[in-house]
């Protein structure tokens, strides 16, 4: 492939996966919201309610946060981060160190918690679990679905966007701070299964377990939950340059931090067809022979990522010093 046979209009960013903090605001006790944008003001990849992004912090740790902004604004993402004193340090870094103007790595958006069609929705949020439900509520309003929100938290002051939700939606919103009302009264909400209602729940593990139990008599697939795995820590993500070997052509290229793998392998003559160059269309899917990709795409399923036998080089990178691709 002859690189200079291209006159790219519009010019693509070499690396699609670095965004800039545009604003940082405290929105509740222990909760900050971050507004992210492309440093060049470019459109960001599209997303749907329930999506999260991977935030790659400067020391290489990765944390997942739900998008809670407005998808009709294609230029910014919004996330909200709870300080978790017992956490592994990601939220503390966001709270204490990240500032407007800083650059952060971003993967996705990906959606494991999609809003499926229904006549009625019951949204159940525990604390910061309100974030993925916010765009869902907006969407339920848009399509004219009947919905209710049951929103629990430790105290009123800890519950982000509580006042805005109540002001906008009145008696569809049921605020239930634990220090005033005790645990959420799930039994009275979930007592009677309704085949036309989908239940969406996001929050701490005990809440999810309680909702699952309360929905046991509901029809299959009525309940959808979001749990961010707090399981094994992934290997930290590589922030430095790494090498990519093209096994079939016998070439090796160094991928600098500001360059995509796709761009780098094309520079040494690999024919890789691509299209969206945002990790959303799947056209550039490439077999991986050795090494562990740092998956940043929006479309591979979890088991496909875990297999580490293919990657989307337009956005995905390397966790180690070296990748070998079947090119």
């Amino acid at each position, binding site marked *: *492939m*002859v*690189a200079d*046979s*291209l*006159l*790219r*209009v*519009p010019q693509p960013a070499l690396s699609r996966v670095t965004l800039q903090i545009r604003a940082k605001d405290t929105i509740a006790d222990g909760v900050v919201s971050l507004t992210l944008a492309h440093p060049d003001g470019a*459109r960001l990849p*599209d997303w*749907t*309610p329930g999506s999260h992004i991977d935030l790659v912090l400067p020391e290489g740790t990765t944390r997942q946060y739900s998008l809670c902004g407005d*998808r*009709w604004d*294609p230029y910014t993402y919004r996330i909200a981060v709870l300080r978790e004193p017992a956490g592994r340090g990601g939220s503390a870094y966001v709270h204490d160190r990240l500032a407007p103007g800083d650059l952060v790595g971003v993967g996705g958006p990906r*959606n494991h918690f*999609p*809003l*499926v*069609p*229904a006549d009625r929705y019951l949204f159940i949020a525990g604390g910061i679990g309100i974030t993925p439900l916010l765009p869902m509520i907006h*969407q339920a309003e*848009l*399509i004219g679905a009947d919905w209710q929100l049951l929103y629990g938290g430790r105290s009123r002051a800890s519950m982000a966007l509580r006042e805005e939700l109540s002001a906008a939606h009145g008696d569809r919103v049921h605020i239930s701070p634990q220090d005033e009302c005790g645990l959420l009264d799930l039994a009275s909400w979930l007592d009677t299964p309704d085949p036309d209602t*989908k239940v969406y729940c996001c929050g701490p593990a005990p809440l999810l377990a309680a909702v699952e139990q309360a929905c046991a008599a509901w029809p299959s*697939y*009525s309940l959808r939950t979001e749990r961010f795995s707090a399981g094994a820590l992934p290997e930290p993500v590589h922030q430095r340059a790494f090498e990519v070997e093209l096994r079939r052509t016998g070439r090796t290229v160094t991928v600098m931090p500001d360059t995509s793998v796709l761009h780098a392998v*094309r520079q040494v003559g690999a*024919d*890789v*067809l*691509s*299209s*969206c*160059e945002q990790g959303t*269309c*799947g*056209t*550039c*899917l490439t077999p991986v022979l050795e090494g562990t990709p740092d998956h940043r795409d929006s*479309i*591979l*399923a979890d088991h*496909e990522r875990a297999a580490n036998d*293919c990657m989307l080089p337009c956005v995905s990178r390397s966790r180690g010093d070296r990748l070998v691709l079947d090119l």
Partner: protein
Amino acid sequence: MTHAPAPAVSLPTSDADPFAAEHLSQPEPLHQQLRQAGPVVHLARYNVYALARYREVHTALVDWQTFQSAAGVGLANFRHEKPWRPPSLLLEADPPHHDAPRRVLREILAPPALRKLRATWQTVAEELVDTVLADRGSQFDAFTDLARAFPLRVFPDAVGLGPEGRDNLLPYGNMAFNAFGPANDLVKADADRAAELSAWVNAQCAREALSEDGFGSRIWAAADRGDLTHAQAPLVVRSLLTAGVDTTVHGLAATLYAFATHPDQWQRLRERPESARVAFDEAVRWQSPVQTFFRTATTDVTIADALIPEGTKILMFLGAANRDPARWLDADRFDLTRDPSGHVGFGMGIHQCVGQHVARLEAEALLTALARRVERIELTGEPRRHLNNTLRSWAALPVTVRPAR
């Protein structure tokens, strides 16, 4: 692109009818005129705005917030006109309604999900090429014998259609793609079969009509899981049947036409059969089987100082964008050394062809099978176009081949 009030500028205007036979059969001269006239051109005959430059077409395709599809992606404006059939849940929908059908179909047609089909399709392609060479000898019609025959062998099976009535698929697709244009003679010619073809296609979308483990039954399984409603499932199957056959047939025909007229490129493919995927996309760029789609402005929008009022239709010339000299060097040349990445022949953004990986897999199977068996492929007569309001279509592609020794 901004939403600020536009300064009064005089917009270039064209009286051309892009759906007239002269332009459908040979679109490049009109495309060149429109690109040169300006970033936005008013088409007086239909009172719509045309985009023919790559930059503007790409921008409009990805900006679903400003350029909507739910008012129809043809000339008819669904805000005022009744669609000829219930609108597509994918092509003729906007977020949020677009989300669930798109997600379901995207997962069913994603590259990892298609791996199981690769070996089967490769075998079918090899058998087809062997049969054509054995039965027809060195002269045959590459359109009917290969480009049309191959997708009809593999795609309806992959969807899970029954054996009867498959010859309705191409006429139905032809009718659907004509319907995006004005009510001209092409549309009138379809009218007598419209009810019959629609009834057949709708009947194939029912759960009972679809075999297990095809794309169709996987759509119904998604509805059983609540990812779609059961009312949506047959319409999503219909999208496969409408958009998955004619497009691929004419995309493959475009590829075979390209090679039959560029013997050096055929040699290159034979030397490097792994470039079959890139070759297909280069042919899609060069011929643009889907020539045009409309969008509708959701707000007063300014493109390059031209104000497009809210609610008006915008005609995007994918074929013109794919040959825009500001984007492509030597744009009119079919060239396997070019990187066709970023062409808009499959669209771009949230409505980008959800079946593009299926099309590429079909092309890869057929091209590699043919490249192994055929040393040269050349035209023996004038290829014939079939006119369609949206698709750059074919009727005949007579070729002679020299089998490989």
